């Protein structure tokens, strides 16, 4: 599934024009992205939490050459699916 198909779903269910639907899907993703960039978590109840985590600098290895390298400290986004989303995914198979 792509952005276009999500926009189509918004168009079908909400009654916005196709153009508006595409725009609003883009806006939603933009806002989430910007909030995470500011270092703030995004908690979407019933779906999941996007969290920004700070990683410390650590020693790592290039798996190809075996060279030891320093992996610098960085910030990463992690996602924790809500119970509801987990159930939805398991659903069909049980």
């Amino acid at each position, binding site marked *: *599934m792509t952005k276009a198909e*999500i926009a189509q*779903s*918004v168009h079908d269910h909400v009654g916005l024009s196709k153009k508006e639907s595409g725009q609003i899907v883009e806006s939603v993703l933009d806002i989430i992205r910007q909030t995470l960039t*500011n270092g703030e978590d995004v908690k979407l109840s019933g779906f999941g939490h996007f969290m920004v985590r700070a990683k410390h600098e650590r020693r790592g290895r290039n798996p190809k050459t075996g060279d030891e390298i320093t992996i610098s400290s960085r910030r*990463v986004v992690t996602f924790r*699916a809500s119970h509801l989303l987990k159930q939805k*995914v398991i659903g069909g198979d049980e």
Partner: protein
Amino acid sequence: MTKSELVDAIVSLEGQITRREAEVVVNNILTAIGDALGRGERVELRGFGSFYTKERDARVGRNPKTGASVSVPAKIVPQFKPGKELRDRVDSAS
């Protein structure tokens, strides 16, 4: 940021949409992604990231309180991998 704060942010960004409409849009987007994952489909959102499902094998776990072993059945879990743009933006802002 919570879901209702996300809805507020959309309303102030889009102007001619009502709060109720924005709320329906956000829920529709999240439902569409969840439904696709429920069908085992991958959801790829350019510039944002991908949602997909992963199979977990059955395993023998332990009740951490009693130490009794329990069998954990195989299951399917939702996953999110941030896209390059999201990764770079969140990291460079640190």
